[in-house]
């Protein structure tokens, strides 16, 4: 199955190599997807623990603190690295 991936927020250029769609096995979980995304980041880079996660616009928590869930084909996984700045 395929899901769409959106990475935005701070330093999202480090995720330039993350594909816009991710191919996963049926029954794959959010953690499976996060692992694949981490693998695609620039060498030495990782998703920050405070990175916000949303599936189909629904807040799921952060990379460091979220409930794992089984993904469905066609869903959109959004990752927003925290931004600040005044």
């Amino acid at each position: 199955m395929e899901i769409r991936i959106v990475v935005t927020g701070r330093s999202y250029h480090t995720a330039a190599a993350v594909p816009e769609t991710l191919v996963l096995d049926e029954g794959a979980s959010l953690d499976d997807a996060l692992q694949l995304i981490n693998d695609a980041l620039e060498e030495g880079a990782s998703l920050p623990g405070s990175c916000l996660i949303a599936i189909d616009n629904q807040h799921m928590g952060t990379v460091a603190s979220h409930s794992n869930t089984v993904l469905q084909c066609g869903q959109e996984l959004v990752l927003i690295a925290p931004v600040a700045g005044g």
Partner: protein
Amino acid sequence: MNDDQAKTPGLSDAELQRYARQLGDGVLSEQGQLRLKQSTALVTRVGGMGGPAALMLAMAGVGRVIIAHGGEMISPDLNRQVLGSEAVIGHPRSEPFGEYLRTMNQFIEVEAIDHEPDDEEADELAQRVDIIVSCPPTFEERLRLNRAAVDAGIPLIDAAQWGMTGTMMVVEPAKSACLACVYPETPPFEEFFPVVGAISSMTGTMAALEAIKILSGTGKPVFGKMLTYDAFEGRMTTIHLERRADCPVCS
């Protein structure tokens, strides 16, 4: 101006004339305008996002606008800090920023604080304002204002930026997710972040618009949502935020 507008108690003819373009269908009612006049908003800080936010609140007619920002203005600030000018570089910014706001609307009051509030002052300010528009660069300050707003039971609008991306969330205390719900782990601070002034102004102005809606009772505030505009990718995202049952601030 029509006869009904001229009869609105609490708003002078001159005020009704000033706000004529924002009164009517699809914008503010006269009662909403009066509620704005009777409101107090705290904006901290007033740089790239908070400056445009404070300016829009002042021009819209929020009766008392309190701004807080410490330090002196430096040259790189002028790619986004619209309340400043070449003349302010090298000088403390809160007073000239406040003075500029006063020149934009004779019908309101502006209070300028020359530093960022600490825990105690944030609590004190939250008790005497109706809304907080939070635009600081550090999560420490943003979480402080979030806690103060939640404790005081007033709405908070949090605005943030990086590069060409802006985010905004609107907190309705005890009803929607607060900033601590969204960031249970305090993210690190990045002092020299890249930013294009246009995204700062857009994000700050969006925050001001939400404040105007809430204070005037107009439209549907985006309570419990985070709006993200990634201008680099040309993508707008809306996230429906969830409260955390174990949030130390709002639960």
